[in-house]
């Protein structure tokens, strides 16, 4: 059975790209969110196996969304999507409960490695 994924990013471009990478690797994208608030709501509704989370989003950023999701489900598996230069924010997200991170620009192989690590 393929793993279900919730993709959170405020850019459709990024969501499309992540979805394409994961879909081609056999994952099922069960939902997308473009704000932190939506990410939390959709996590509550969908309970996906994996969440990819952008850090900078309107209406609650990715780090606060991680905190809220971890409150809902301490075992949530969240992969942060970060840009270069966001090290401090990534560290904060990891401390908030995110399991791993990938750095934009994405290389599909790195994304899939990170996903495998998160899903264990």
């Amino acid at each position: 059975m393929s793993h279900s994924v919730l993709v959170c990013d405020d850019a459709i471009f990024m969501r499309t790209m992540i979805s394409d990478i994961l879909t081609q690797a056999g994952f099922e994208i069960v939902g997308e969110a473009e704000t932190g608030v939506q990410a939390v709501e959709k996590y509550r509704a969908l309970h996906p196996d994996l969440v990819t989370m952008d850090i900078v989003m309107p209406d609650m950023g990715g780090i606060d969304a991680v905190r809220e999701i971890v409150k809902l489900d301490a075992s949530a598996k969240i992969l942060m999507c970060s840009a270069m230069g966001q090290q401090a924010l990534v560290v904060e997200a990891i401390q908030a409960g995110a399991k791993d991170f990938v750095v934009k620009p994405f290389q599909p192989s790195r994304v899939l490695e990170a996903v495998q690590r998160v899903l264990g």
Partner: protein
Amino acid sequence: MELSQYAELFLAESREHLQACNQLLLEWERSPAAGEPVAGLFRAVHTIKGMAATMGYAGVAQLAHRAENLLDALRRGGRAPDQAVLDLLFRTLDRLEQTITAAVRGQHAKPADDLALELDRVATGLTERRISGPVPPIAPAAPPPPSAGPTQPGRVVRVVLRPDAQLKGARAAVVLGRAAVLGAVSDVQPAPHTLETDEFDGRFSFTLDSAGAADDIAADLRTAGDVAAVEISAARAAPDPTGERRQGELGRGRHVRVDIRHLDALMNLAGELVIGRGRLAGVAARRQDPELEEVQSAIGRLTGELQGVVVQARLTPVWQLFDRFPRLVRDLSRELDKEVVFRVEGKDIELDRAILDEIGDALVHLLRNAVDHGIEPPEERRRRGKPREGNLLLAAVRERNSVAIQVSDDGRGIDRQAVLALAKREGLVDRNAEALPDDLVLRLVSRPGFTTAEAVSEVSGRGVGIDAVLTRLRGVGGSLELRSSPQAGTAFTMRLPVTLVVLRALLAQVGDERYALPLTHVAETLELDAAAVTTVGGGDAVILRDRVLPLVHLDRLLGVTRSNGMPSRRPVIVLEVGDRRTGVVVDGVVGQQEIVVKGFTAPQGTLRVFSGATVLGDGMPALILDAGGLV
């Protein structure tokens, strides 16, 4: 991975973000103390940076990165930007747009080094001021706290990350996070905050209080990724908690992006279906077969619904176009030393995407005209007892069958005397004429090349501009109206069909041909009373409800020869564009039909009275008459 497939999506989304940035920047300029615009700007520029880096557009990503640094400094500093900073940001947005467009087209953009340096310089200045001030520096968050109490005895774990690991500090945090699951972590070396600096080389150590076997711990820590080596001093064992997962139900996003070409193709197919429906209805009516009629009725209904959905899918709110105008008006008024309050109304009104694309240039013309020629310089306004700031309004209003878009100003109005004098000189009006009604002024100023000498500047020449506007509008079945009063201002109103491709039309017969007249402009039909025809201003006319109705004989205009002779009773179709009316004399009215407008390139020398062509229900082609050209 093939990136080119994402280029269009990247371009479209980047442009949206840039447009939003322009809006936010204008908002910030109006109220520099507000905090929201800078947060929104930061996010949008950050998003562009991430997308550009992913596409491999290094130039765009670097410029966006610089802009992001400056915005970050402004955001954290919490201070209002001065005009120089705002101008710098405006210029940066323009440059981003240029480099993005160039990158997507595969062109080499001129590097933005000068701008990047300026951004860096301003950002550095802001940061230094901030640090020297009372604001505390932003400290990176501490690593996960070990369980309370003094350092417990445990094993020392040494980790070396791979040299090519990205964000080594963050990777170290992931390793520490894994370790914290196994047991209490303490005594992290080097100090946690130096892990996040560029000097961190990927070697760190910590004390772990865990009962796990060394090999298990090492194996677990390696799964944190990018770990080259783990070294542990002693050994015990610990459980590895695993969480439960539940499979979620499906729930996808409710919007998708569709290439406009697919929508065009769908619209054309739906249009063909409408034509087919018309033919089927004709066949069913002749055969009088109940079964056929039933099928025809069902297919007719479905076709209508399908067409409705496609039309709906193509509708686009006008803000997608309007949102770029505040920036335009701002730049223009600064350039021309005008003070302008620009308001936009009716932003949620929707139009067919293709129509919206067509009217963009026309609106730019009208707005430029208003700022350049309509609104007076502040000093002149003051002398005339007007407020220094001129008002400029762009408003969209939904009317019965159309959408009206108005550009109005409270400036000096069109100089009728100048227009009149010029018109007389060129013999366009009677030499004794003393005043010009609005519709005549519009017709005069919209003649190609017509311009009053003082109305020409580098920004816009009114005559040429309005001509261009009219041509574009007629192409999509729209019309233009003018209201102008001296010293009170000028208003241009465009009337546009809501949808482009399918419209209801009246079919008229002239000779052996049928012509379609869009119902948008048909006011009524009358029967021509030959005895009532009089001559007004050298042309035929009738008096209709105390008003002169000029007549156009379509047969004469089109040079039609009849095989069956002139019919005895002839209808007049009254067309109305704005408050101008004209009666079109035809041989007969065939009926109403939904017609599908086909692309139409008029051969050289064709009369300017056709706006397109269509295929009628019986499969025969017909030309569509342009009301604007006839009235």
